């Protein structure tokens, strides 16, 4: 219970005042307080009558003293806001007002101080300030400005960031008409006008609209605008929105898109296959050439697929191994010749490179592959090599032929000069006649040699010899008829296993010569101890008609004579008719028709010739 010097009634009244109230005397001593005051400061009963105001509020300023002094003189002034700590240690804010305290004689005997707790208001204000500051900072950092439009008084507010984006000074005062005018004429201005209209009339908000403005200093800028209506009791009272400078971003985006387009155009139009694979060797990028090679129109059809889904198994295993190696060692494979086989069995030669793709930590996250299709090049190379081979074989043949010609002519001319030398000094008539006989023999030999050489030359020079379709069976029968004397004299059996209607391609005269030579050789070199048996067969294989002529004759030691078998003037058997020209000529004829001849033989058992007639002729 509070003890007061006043009447009990008055004291009781004061205690019940709803606001925290204190009565002080002119010595700043607290005389009487309301219960509210007491409950806030939790004063005990003793202090109330004795405590000076400044003892209760030790941190009260001198300003207070002045204000209270003035109050004692009858000039009350507001004392302002004060912060203090309540009995629970909580921060509280008060607004102080004072009035002079008059006694019944209208003398000032002190002052009445009344507090109103404004803690909440202060806190709200602080919070608002904080929020404003925060918004401002956010606006500065993110370059997102704010704006507000009040419909009732047609007022437009721009925050400093919004102003900065527009390129106007801080004290610029915008209005809705000029604001619209900053938008670039055409699409941008039309869009924002529509958005404003829709917001004001239909309550629709807009966001993330990319538009262009022309700033106060004439610069065209990309901005992102958003806005929404504000309602009060169901009616639209205004609009608020954001305004963001996204110029650099848009320009960067445009640049990025341009760069991407450039890269894509480059990649797609390079005459090489380009792809990117991830660590699992799944394709994540493929250019047009790669798509075409894999037989798809859309890269989507191969993206995400591994080599095992695109190539033949073996090729895929090899490729995957290589990918892993490149990603593991980080060492690229450059310009390696590889042959790839797709699932449909198509084989392609590539000059391929694989380069590891590294992330910021230097670890590979995939590979870039670049492959140049060199299939046609390889084919050309093969062709060229073939031509070189043919040329070198031809060259060898020519040189060999030159030596043969030189040797043969020289040996005959040496004989002539020797015989003529004898003739000059010979006295004996019989011997002279003998020498002249020799001379005529030498002359015949020379003529025969020239004839042989002539045949060889004509085979090798007639490159455009007419190849015709010939019935082989008929030709064999014909050749056997021509050789009938030889065959019947040797009581030899010829077995013609060639189908009656078998057709092969050959120069007719060459075929005659080939058949005659091989058949007569087979008969000539028969084994003296057994009946001669010659078998002729034919088959089509690998682009050739292959004629097989097999005998059971003497056979040839191929290890000894193999390389000389088709040489000129080479004979291997002591046979009176052997001239060493037949096989040489036939070999030339077969070569001239792009054919070949193979021989296998066992001495004392027999020989088998396989003559390949080229079907492409």
């Amino acid at each position, binding site marked *: 219970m509070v003890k007061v010097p006043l009447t009990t009634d008055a004291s009781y009244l004061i205690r019940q005042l709803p606001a925290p109230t204190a009565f002080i005397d002119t010595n700043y001593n607290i005389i009487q307080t309301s219960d509210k005051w007491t409950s806030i400061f939790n004063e005990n009963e003793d202090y109330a009558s004795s405590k000076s105001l400044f003892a209760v509020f030790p941190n009260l300023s001198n300003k207070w003293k002045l204000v209270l002094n003035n109050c004692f003189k009858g000039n009350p002034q507001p004392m302002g806001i004060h912060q203090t700590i309540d009995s629970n240690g909580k921060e509280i804010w008060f607004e102080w007002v004072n009035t002079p305290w008059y006694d019944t004689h209208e003398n000032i005997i002190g002052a009445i101080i009344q507090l109103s707790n404004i803690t909440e208001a202060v806190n709200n204000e602080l919070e608002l300030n904080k929020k404003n500051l925060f918004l401002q900072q956010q606006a500065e950092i993110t370059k997102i400005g704010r704006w507000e439009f009040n419909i009732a008084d047609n007022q437009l507010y721009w925050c400093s960031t919004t102003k900065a984006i527009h390129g106007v000074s801080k004290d610029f005062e915008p209005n809705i008409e000029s604001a619209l005018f900053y938008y670039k004429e055409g699409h941008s201005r039309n869009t924002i006008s529509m958005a404003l209209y829709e917001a004001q009339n239909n309550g629709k908000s807009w966001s993330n609209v990319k538009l262009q403005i022309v700033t106060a200093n004439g610069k065209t800028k990309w901005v992102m605008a958003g806005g929404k209506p504000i309602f009060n009791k169901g009616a639209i009272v205004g609009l608020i929105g954001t305004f963001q400078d996204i110029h650099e971003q848009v320009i960067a985006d445009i640049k990025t898109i341009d760069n991407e387009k450039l890269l894509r155009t480059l990649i797609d139009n390079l005459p090489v296959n380009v792809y990117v694979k991830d660590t699992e060797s799944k394709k994540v990028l493929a250019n047009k050439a790669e798509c075409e090679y894999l037989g798809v129109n859309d890269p989507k059809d191969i993206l995400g697929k591994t080599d095992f889904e695109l190539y033949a198994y073996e090729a895929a295993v090899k490729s995957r191994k290589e990918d892993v190696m490149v990603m593991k060692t980080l060492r690229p494979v450059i310009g390696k010749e590889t042959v790839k086989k797709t699932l449909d069995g198509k084989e392609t030669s590539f000059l391929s490179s694989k380069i590891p793709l590294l992330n910021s930590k230097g670890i590979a996250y995939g590979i870039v592959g670049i492959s140049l299709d060199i299939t046609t090049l390889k084919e050309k190379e093969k062709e060229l090599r073939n031509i070189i081979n043919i040329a070198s074989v031809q060259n060898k043949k020519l040189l060999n032929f030159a*030596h043969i010609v030189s040797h043969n002519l020289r040996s005959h001319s*040496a*004989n002539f*000069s020797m015989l003529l*030398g004898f003739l000059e000094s010979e006295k004996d008539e019989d011997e002279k006649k003998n020498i002249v006989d020799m001379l005529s023999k*030498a002359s015949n030999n020379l003529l025969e040699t020239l004839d042989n050489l002539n045949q060889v030359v004509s085979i090798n020079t007639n490159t455009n010899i007419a190849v015709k379709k010939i019935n082989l069976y008929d030709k064999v029968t014909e050749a056997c008829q021509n050789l009938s004397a030889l065959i019947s004299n040797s009581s030899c059996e010829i077995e013609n296993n060639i189908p009656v209607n078998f057709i092969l391609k050959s120069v007719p005269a060459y075929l005659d010569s080939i058949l005659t030579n091989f058949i007569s050789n087979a008969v000539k070199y028969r084994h003296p101890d057994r009946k001669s048996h010659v078998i002729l067969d034919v088959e089509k294989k690998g682009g050739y008609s292959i004629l097989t002529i097999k005998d059971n004759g003497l056979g040839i030691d191929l290890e000894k004579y193999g390389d000389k078998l088709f040489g000129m003037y080479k*004979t291997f058997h*002591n046979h009176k008719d052997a001239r*060493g020209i037949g096989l040489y000529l036939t070999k030339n004829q077969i070569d001239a028709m792009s054919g070949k001849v193979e021989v296998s033989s066992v001495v004392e058992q027999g020989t088998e010739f396989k003559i390949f007639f080229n079907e492409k002729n």
Partner: protein
Amino acid sequence: MKKISDITIIDDDAITVFGLRKLISSSVDCTSIESYDNGKIALDAMTDFHDNGKQIPQIIFLDINMPIMDGWEFLEAFIKIPIQDKIRINIVTSSIDPFDLNQYEKYKNKSHHLITFNQKPIDRNKITEITKVA
């Protein structure tokens, strides 16, 4: 001039054999001149002489291009026969093939026999020169 016992000609060309015989008999003093149609017949004869202790001809005229067994094949086999005497082997050829010259170089150093390489035609002077005993 020292008398030469036996001269052998190995050549398949009858005219050359005739010529060589004529040249040799008119310019060299020798007991006999034998001739063989190819290397094989000649080699068989030489082997036979050696096996039966008969005299191997002191001088051999050897053609290169011959059927069955050519001059080089004959030479290869001949130098393997263990003949103590130094035999003179005159290669007589019309070949200008470098292969043949290479072969000659090879055999010249491979054997203790005297081997010479002679281009046709052979005249009387040449014959005198190359029929001296090795």
